[in-house]
């Protein structure tokens, strides 16, 4: 008797303790208002983008009084791990942010809702950006921003070395020549920085007339002669012409810090650096379209808002996504916060973007759009990138020649990644 009473009381305590675990997130309050959960990583409180996003949400709620939006911001480094857990558990937010590289993985797993018919009029969106989030003919998301990578240069150093500023016609040879003159100014000054990373390599290959995949994206072409030449030229900036510091030379300093300290002549990095450089560069700087080798090629980075396949309110979620990404009000707020580029074609938005300086040559950002290359994507994106990066590291560390490394890379990709 005593034992059963013990067991019963224990069971009661256990149930009471476990009770909170059984309450699912409430989605609908009374009075018919709908609460949508929004999850994102690109707008942060550390820059103006966080406030801009809050204003965008406030404007949406004003225009849609029956919808309330709950925002959750998670840092980029942790975002995708926790997103995966939420998707697997069926708790994904109604609207969440995805970057271009992870989009294919989630779309192919059926985690996203089809929003083709729910987005309404999408004529204001940039076509390339909109198509990037179309998977096998179905529109799964709407681009909320895009950015690319340009050549930043330190005007003060160019003046000291008596050099003409980079133009849109520059090639790698011009960069090397200018770097040598800039480095002659002082032994602590470097000419150029552009590491042999996955993102820089697929672009460098394109700038040399090559490509990592065939046009249909059905096969890898990593060891094309043009790619091999690009890889050895790029690695050579550290080992042969020595215009670029190695990791040892950097001594723990980041590339942006090196540029801001005035010790780097030219830097290839993203336009998201505008805010930081504007605030922290004690010298004049400007940008130019990134120089290619046989042709120009520039990056295309885009983030999107997608709707979860398990959302109870797909059409409200789609209209939230569409508003934040492409409405006149939201894109105006985005431009004012220097929060990358809105993916729209409205002339007044473009004008207001161009009118903000520095840099003077903001036109180069739009001119770069003519030379966009999209990264090689597959459903096994992270693994593919890691494999390619490991072989690029071998080249950069001098362990393997460019030809041997890319041949081995091609073999490993064919064995492990299915396209």
């Amino acid at each position, binding site marked *: 008797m005593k034992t059963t009473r013990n067991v019963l009381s224990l069971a009661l305590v256990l149930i009471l303790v476990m009770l909170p675990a059984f309450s699912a997130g409430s989605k609908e309050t009374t009075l018919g208002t709908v609460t949508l959960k929004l999850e994102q990583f690109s707008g942060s409180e550390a820059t103006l983008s966080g406030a801009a996003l809050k204003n965008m949400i406030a404007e949406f709620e004003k225009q849609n009084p029956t919808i309330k939006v709950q925002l959750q911001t998670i840092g980029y480094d942790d975002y995708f791990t926790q997103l995966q857990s939420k998707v*697997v558990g069926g708790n994904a937010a109604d609207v969440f942010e995805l970057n271009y590289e992870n989009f294919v993985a989630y779309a192919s797993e059926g*985690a996203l809702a089809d929003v083709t018919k729910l987005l309404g009029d999408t004529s204001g969106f940039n076509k390339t950006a909109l198509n990037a989030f179309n998977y096998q003919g179905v529109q799964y998301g709407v681009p909320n921003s895009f950015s690319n990578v340009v050549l930043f240069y330190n005007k003060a150093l160019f003046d000291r070395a008596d050099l003409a500023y980079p133009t849109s016609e520059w090639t790698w040879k011009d960069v090397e020549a200018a770097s040598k003159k800039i480095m002659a100014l002082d032994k602590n000054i470097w000419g150029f920085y552009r590491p042999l990373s996955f993102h820089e390599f697929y672009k460098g290959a394109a700038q040399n007339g090559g490509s990592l995949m065939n046009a249909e994206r059905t096969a890898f072409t990593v060891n094309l002669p043009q790619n091999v030449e690009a890889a050895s030229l790029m690695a050579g900036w550290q080992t042969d012409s020595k215009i670029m510091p190695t990791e040892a030379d950097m001594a723990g300093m980041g590339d942006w810090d090196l540029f801001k300290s005035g010790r780097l002549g030219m830097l290839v990095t993203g336009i998201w650096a505008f805010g930081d450089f504007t605030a922290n560069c004690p010298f004049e700087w400007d940008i130019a379209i990134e120089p290619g080798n046989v042709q120009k090629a520039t990056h295309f980075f885009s983030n999107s808002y997608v709707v979860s396949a398990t959302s109870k309110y797909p059409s409200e979620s789609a209209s939230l996504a569409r508003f934040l990404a492409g409405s006149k009000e939201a894109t105006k707020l985005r431009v004012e916060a220097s929060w990358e580029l809105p993916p729209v074609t409205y002339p007044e938005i473009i004008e207001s973007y161009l009118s903000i300086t520095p840099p003077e040559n903001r036109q180069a950002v739009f001119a770069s759009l003519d030379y966009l290359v999209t990264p090689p994507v597959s459903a096994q994106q992270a693994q593919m990138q890691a494999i390619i990066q490991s072989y690029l*590291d071998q080249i950069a560390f001098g362990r393997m020649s460019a030809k041997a490394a890319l041949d081995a890379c091609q073999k490993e990709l064919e064995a492990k990644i299915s396209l």
Partner: protein
Amino acid sequence: MSIQGRRGIRVALPYLLPSLFGALLFAILPIVISLFLSVTSWSGMSRVSLTDGFLKFVAKNFVGLDNAKAILSDGEFYRALSHNLYFIALYLPLMLILSMTCALIINAPKKGANVYRVVYYLPVLTSWVAGSLIWKWLLSPVYGPINNALELFGIQGPMWLQSEIWAMPSIVLASIWKDMGFYAMILFGGLKSINTQYYEAAHIDGASKVQSFMHITLPLLSSVLFYVSMLSMINAFQLFPQVMVMTKDGNAGPNGATMVMVERIYKYAFRYGKMGYASAYSWILFVIILFCTYIQKRGEKRWVRYDV
């Protein structure tokens, strides 16, 4: 079972239930589920429910031993395993020697011994992430105190975590700093259980300190030392937080120098979208650890003396 045994269990059961429940839900159940997942091709990114059609899901995505075969035929597995073994080869002897030294220091009947007990045990209490970040700074090639101190002696310090050769030794250093206090405490307990009469007798017979250490302390401590070495070997195979925090993400370390088993499991499960593959990987790791522990257990008869 005797009557007392059965009654004993009936009395004890209600008190054991909470812990049993926790162990079942958070340890046993996930292990069983991961066994099921290891024979599927699940990516880890789609919705799966445990209570609604789980077995049907397993049957639909069943790939049998393909995951295990793919793992064992991939050079990367052997590379990660060799890095684990390299870590063990450096870590285990150093750990045994240093924790033994540490235990002897704490055991010494001196006034300051209590302070040392706290000082050596503090690292054990810190979180691995905090400890790793501190070591990352300590080992910084240009700004870190270690290289700056070496410079005072005229030695050019290596690139530590950025160097292919020194990356793993750096991890070993940090791991020893963290775990030494824990094992020293265990050995300290063992030291305390040795009868001091043995030392007195040896002293009378004219044995030196080294001789009494070699012929009294070590043999009498052999069972504890065995336990410490088995525990640290199992831990070494599960090397993970230090690697993730201290070395470059992506391929773990400069040119993959610190790529280890659990790091691979994590990458496949949470970055590369291959949860089934990663589950198979962790079961293979389990078999390896089981095998090594079995070998050690067999050696126990030869190495450990219980006859005192």
